[in-house]
């Protein structure tokens, strides 16, 4: 809200500096956002919160200053009896929907001379950034900025017929506004209409047809109340914001509408001549009587932590324009001011007292007791995962939760349901709630490839949103990982990550086919039969779809699965202090025999002496071994808990392993 300093002084004997006034206003809720000099005046920019439409006029701001500095407010009487003739407004006003328009006041003025505004009027409007148009329009704007009530002046002669109706627009009804642009209305919009059609978009803007011009002599002055929600809907849909719509959206003072109408007429006659017709039109109902609110003084220390003297409480409430209807043992009952629709509960009055009395009077009180707080398991796991990922050289990233349709379907390992969509996109073309972090991470790779960064190793811990019928979706935290390293490097990183949470957890990997993965290079990871996640080499077609030039690997792990396997407080296990013995085996096996198979057999057959079965290398020598064979070189680490193993014991164990491998896979030791 832009405020003219000169204007403000009209309502108060203000002998206080601008700086002090702005300071106090800021601490009373009217945040001072800066000031500028316009001609001989000062323009103050004050930020008005949406609950205080009464501050959207100079009188309201002046009232606040009056409360803060204990000054009396002088509001013009707007008495028009001396400038009225015996005539009456010639129109009939019909309200189709009193919910939308509870009251509508029309007055007419005859014999005006439209022309330039006097300097005082032009100057004040200029100070607050409004251009001067003519003496009639300027007055309507002036009164709007004075009291916050929008007004509109129609050229009475151009209104067709005797009836003015406030009605819903017809679908696709056309309306030419005073900005000389044509708007296509919908049946949700409300218009002011004459015998021909819409002459104003209710609460938003007047129409070109009935615009006041140089030749206008008779006026119809509209002062009405329109409901907030429809005005906002229309204003937003048509992208047509005005000072009027802004105020109707926040609510006008129903008891000041007539004052505004009279004030407008008074100033028009003063600046443009003419006479007001004494008979006004009042359509709609009188404002409801306001219910009283009681403030128990004991509630002030209970909420604010300080006592405020009863006399001060009363002074504040009264000065704000509320009427004290009762003051008895420990409580004050008031009828709120008509412009304060936001005051209808005790706590509203507590806030008013606090605001004016001053929040600086509230001390810091160490009344809160000590309390234990604990880190959630989710946070602990997240920290552990991050620590592991950092150590392995991955940077954490954060990406948008909403993605494009194509990205939302690029990987559907977690859900095959149609991804959820939002009613509007987050950025152009992106309105799907992601079901996997992988596409976002591939997008992140592309962002980095653009700059030719050599190492793009990223991870993100964020949610995916899996649709669930008739319920809030299943939101699951995932750890998404992408790397320029190979399959086994990334698999190693995942294994190390799992190992950091639980050294004994065994990740089982089985092949997994998905268009995202290169054929035969995707995998499904499980732990004890539960899905942990997916890992694979990005296929050429997927890389192309994401605009990637370089090879990439990706993995996505379910954080809940990691939480399940994690050991948050590891327990010491006694370990052998005797030397371990390593034996290398070089076995020739069929190509189909997987490493995990050999490892399982060796572990099982070797018994408790086997500490580890470590893969070393695979060779292929079809000439020697025949086609479809491979040589698998691996190391068996043997150790006993209570003694140093003898060579014989080791030999015996190795023989068992060889025998089992031979029996179950046909493996032969390369002698």
């Amino acid at each position, binding site marked *: 809200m832009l405020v003219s300093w000169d204007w403000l002084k009209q309502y108060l004997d203000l002998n206080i500096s601008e700086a002090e006034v702005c300071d106090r206003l800021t601490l009373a809720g009217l945040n001072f956002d800066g000031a500028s000099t316009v001609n001989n005046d000062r323009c103050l920019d004050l930020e008005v*919160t949406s609950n205080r439409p009464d501050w959207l006029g100079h009188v309201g701001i002046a009232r606040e200053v009056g409360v803060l500095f204990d000054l009396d407010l002088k509001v013009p009487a707007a008495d028009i009896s001396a400038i009225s003739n015996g005539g009456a407004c010639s129109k009939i006003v019909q309200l189709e929907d009193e919910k939308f328009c509870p009251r509508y006041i029309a007055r007419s003025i005859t014999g005006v001379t439209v022309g330039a505004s006097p300097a005082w009027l032009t100057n004040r409007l200029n100070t607050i950034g409004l251009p001067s148009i003519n003496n009639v329009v300027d007055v309507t704007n002036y009164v709007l900025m004075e009291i916050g009530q929008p007004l509109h002046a129609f050229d009475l002669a151009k209104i067709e017929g005797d009836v003015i109706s406030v009605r819903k627009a017809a679908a696709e009804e056309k309306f030419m506004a005073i900005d000389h642009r044509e708007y296509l209305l919908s049946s949700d919009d409300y218009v002011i209409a004459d015998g021909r059609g819409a002459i104003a978009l209710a609460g938003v803007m007047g129409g070109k047809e009935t615009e006041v011009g140089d030749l206008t002599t008779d006026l119809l002055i509209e002062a009405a109340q329109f409901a907030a929600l429809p005005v*906002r809907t229309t204003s937003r849909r048509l992208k047509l914001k005005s000072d009027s719509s802004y105020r109707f959206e926040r609510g006008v003072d129903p008891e000041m509408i007539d004052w505004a109408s009279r004030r407008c007429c008074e100033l028009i006659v003063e600046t443009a001549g003419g006479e007001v017709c004494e008979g006004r039109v009042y359509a709609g109902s009188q404002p409801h009587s306001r219910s009283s609110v009681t403030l128990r003084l004991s509630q002030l220390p209970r909420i604010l932590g300080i006592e405020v003297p009863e006399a001060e409480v009363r002074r504040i409430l009264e000065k704000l324009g509320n009427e004290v209807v009762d003051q008895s043992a420990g409580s004050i009952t008031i009828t709120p001011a008509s412009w304060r629709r936001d005051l209808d509960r005790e706590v509203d009055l507590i806030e008013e007292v606090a605001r004016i009395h001053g929040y600086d009077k509230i001390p810091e009180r160490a*009344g*809160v007791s000590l309390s234990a707080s604990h880190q959630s398991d989710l946070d602990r796991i997240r920290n552990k995962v991050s620590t592991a990922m950092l150590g392995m050289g991955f940077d954490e990233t954060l990406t948008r939760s*909403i993605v494009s349709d194509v990205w939302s379907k690029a990987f559907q390992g977690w859900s095959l349901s149609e991804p959820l969509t*939002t*009613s509007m996109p987050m950025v152009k073309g992106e309105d799907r709630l992601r079901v996997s972090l992988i596409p976002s991470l591939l997008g992140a790779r592309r962002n980095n490839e653009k700059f030719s960064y050599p190492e793009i190793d990223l991870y993100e811990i964020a949610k995916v*949103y899996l649709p669930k019928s008739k319920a*809030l979706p299943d939101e699951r935290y995932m750890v998404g990982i992408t790397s320029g390293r190979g399959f086994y490097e990334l698999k190693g990183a995942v294994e190390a990550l799992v190992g950091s949470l639980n050294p004994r957890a065994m990740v089982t990997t089985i092949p997994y086919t998905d268009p995202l993965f290169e054929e035969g290079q995707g995998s499904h990871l499980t732990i004890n039969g539960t899905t942990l996640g997916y890992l694979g080499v990005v296929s050429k077609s997927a890389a192309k779809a994401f605009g990637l030039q370089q090879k990439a690997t990706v993995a996505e792990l379910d954080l809940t699965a990691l939480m399940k396997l994690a050991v948050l407080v590891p327990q010491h296990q006694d370990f052998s202090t005797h030397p371990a013995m390593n034996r290398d085996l070089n076995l020739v096996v069929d190509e189909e025999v997987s490493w995990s198979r050999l490892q399982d057999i060796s572990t099982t057959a070797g018994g408790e002496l086997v500490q580890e079965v470590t893969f070393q290398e695979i060779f292929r020598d079809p000439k020697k071994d025949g086609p479809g064979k491979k040589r698998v070189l691996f190391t068996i680490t043997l150790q006993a808990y209570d003694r140093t193993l003898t060579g014989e014991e080791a030999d015996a164990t190795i023989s068992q392993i060889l025998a089992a491998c031979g029996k179950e896979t046909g493996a032969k030791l390369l002698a």
Partner: protein
Amino acid sequence: MSLNDFIKQLDDLVEAASHRFEEAIKQVDSQILEDTRVEYLGAKSGKLKEAQKGLGKVSKEDKPVAGKRFNEVKTRLEELFQSAADTITGGSSSKGKSEAIDVTLPGKRPRLGHIHPITQTIDELKDIMGRLGFSAVEGPEIEDDWHNFEALNIPLEHPARDPLDNFYLNVAAAGTGGGNQLLRSQTSTVQIRVMENTKPPIRIVSLGRVYRPDEIDATHYAMFHQIEGLLVDTNVTMADLKYVLRLFASSYLGGDVEIRFRPSFFPFTEPSVEVDMRWQDTWLEFGGAGMVDPNVLKAVGYDPEEVTGFAFGLGVERLCMRRHGINDIRYLYDSNTKFLAQF
């Protein structure tokens, strides 16, 4: 001599030698060690030298494999000797003089990852609040009307519920119990969920991603993070709020900080205030706060005559950007590794 025989011979050699070296280690006897070295690695008549003769006898096509294996065994025996010698003498002092290296060459750096600055900021805020007794809680990012609006004293006609200002989901409202679904526009939703399921006292911080449609530019993003504190108990006042926020600000900024309240308006608190912190002679905007609105307390089944509470909320991005001098919010969500590696 067949390849297999040759390899067998070498394997046996390693096996036997390793037993001998182990024996030397066990007895800490350098004489046994030296004897073993001569026996196996001796230049004139060591067993390895002897075995090398077999190399000449394997067939020509097997020679590469046999040669490779021989070299491996030789290296292995030398390693076994060296490691035994090191163990017995307690170090590699027996080694000859090492050659000088260019110490000015760059080190081989292991790659270390970086934590996103937003995560770092959140962690710090959580940590401070944790020390003040507030536990961090999370909740769903997709919410219903009840938790995002109704229970927070934001009625249907309130502008905050405008479809253009929220990411509503295109799902049928029926069956979800709470009306429409939307991406939460504030983390206060979590506070409602906690209060619905817990009796006072409550002392929590809720945090996470929130969403509001906005044209993305240097200072606006349609997805951002909030952290909100809530304390509900008997006898909680605005003086307590001021105290806790001052402790928070002092911890975050370090040193003497002053707190100032300016009146403001939020549907879910009353009185509502903007909080400023005075630090190094400037007032910095810190966030919004206030006393929990009685309607909110009623909505979760608390009696406003019995308990009071305060709440405050901060925008994580703003704090993070100011702390690290980040001048464009889009950097936070662009995944540019050059950006990420700075933190």
